[in-house]
């Protein structure tokens, strides 16, 4: 199962498509889909909690503009999201095979 990739060497991830670019692209799509799910899960929890307390009108969220700590928090979230979605690109193993 060791890779014979002459450039990357034994760290090269297995590939299944004729063009390994597709393998990495599917990796990004998969991670992105997971991100979307986790986000929607959190959003459902949040909206439910807020609506039960009468604190938020979900329709009003559309016009909000984040600033300060909220903006920083969203930026950190965005950074982790980018790392997660793009981590398939280098095509490297995460475990020894």
């Amino acid at each position, binding site marked *: *199962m060791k890779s014979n990739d002459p450039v990357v060497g034994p760290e090269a991830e*297995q590939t*299944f*498509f004729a063009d390994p670019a597709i*393998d990495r692209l*599917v*990796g990004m799509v*998969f*991670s992105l*889909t*997971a991100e979307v*799910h*986790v986000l929607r*899960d*959190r959003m459902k*929890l949040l909206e439910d909690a807020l609506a039960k307390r009468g604190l938020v009108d979900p329709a009003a969220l559309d016009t909000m503009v984040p600033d300060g700590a909220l903006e920083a928090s969203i930026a950190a979230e965005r950074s*982790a999201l980018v*790392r*997660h979605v793009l*981590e*398939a690109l280098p095509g490297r193993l*995460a*475990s*020894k*095979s």
Partner: protein
Amino acid sequence: MAALTLFGSREANAFQEFIMEARTWWAAELFPRLREEYEVRKRLAEQEGRRVGKAEDVALLFSRSTLYQYFCWLERHVQKSKYSSSRWGLVAQLAREPERAEERLAAAKKGPLELDRSLRVPEYYEAHDIHQHPGNLHRDPHAALVYEASALSIHPKTKKNELHERFVEVVRREGEFSRVLDMGCGFGKSTVPLAHAFPRAEVIGVDVSGPCLELAAAEAARSRVANVRFRQADAADTRLPGGSFDLVTSTMLLHELPGPAVEATLAETRRLLAPGGVSIHLDFRTEDPFWQFIMYGHGVRNNEPFLEPLIRMDLADAYRRAGFDEVRIEPFAEREGATDPSNPFWRFPWAAIIARKVS
């Protein structure tokens, strides 16, 4: 299904739920489409006069299949994401919540556990991160918790512990046992059900992984099973007294071993059994070329290099060479109806290899 509570983080749990869903979709939706494609490709090949009788013939049929490429990709990468996603993978998340792991393992200190700090894991065990588990099962002290969490999404549509409970039923059909050894016991998933099934028996689980044994002992202490204990040892050389067991079992051990280790484990199995004793090793067997092709590929995609050699091995002959007189290989259903040919879902082709030491 109840919401997952593996971690304190809801986001991490939601991610792992997504992984389980993707794995189930792969097994229950994508795999049946692949099987249908196989039937069509096979028919077309046979119409052209080409015979499809071996795994290699099946590989040729799928050599230009787009569906098969996606099947392979998902098999490899759903598992990889589960373990190694930097954001919510099992390894990263467990490292973020060490107190949770420590709490689970604390009971091991009071558990029935004998570790051998001088034991060196076999070279083949050191060489591969099986199941794509980074660091394998012996390096990280929390590796067993990662493995336990990973197992949740391995057998889609099978209830938790169902496989192990059904294995115990197979064991029961072979008789009553009073001295039981469970080889390669991992975190005790089969060992503890065996101890429950034979409450008057003395049950010992052996494994080379210290972290797995610690979790096994912690769980045994937590569930107050008095007749089980765990010992760190290589199944091929347990250093336990010969003839001291009337039942020797394993589940999912043999396919992780290279050929010489399989032979040594069978010889050790026989040495440990008293005359009349029974051995039941649960593993994978299939004569169907399509399933052989699927399993050989699974071995590559899941970092299990000895899976294909085991399926190719003449096991009945290996048992005879190890000195067993009677050997039966029976299909094993991990859930009701699993072995029915009409079952469309992906599964492992389980088989119980049942052998008796007559003299």
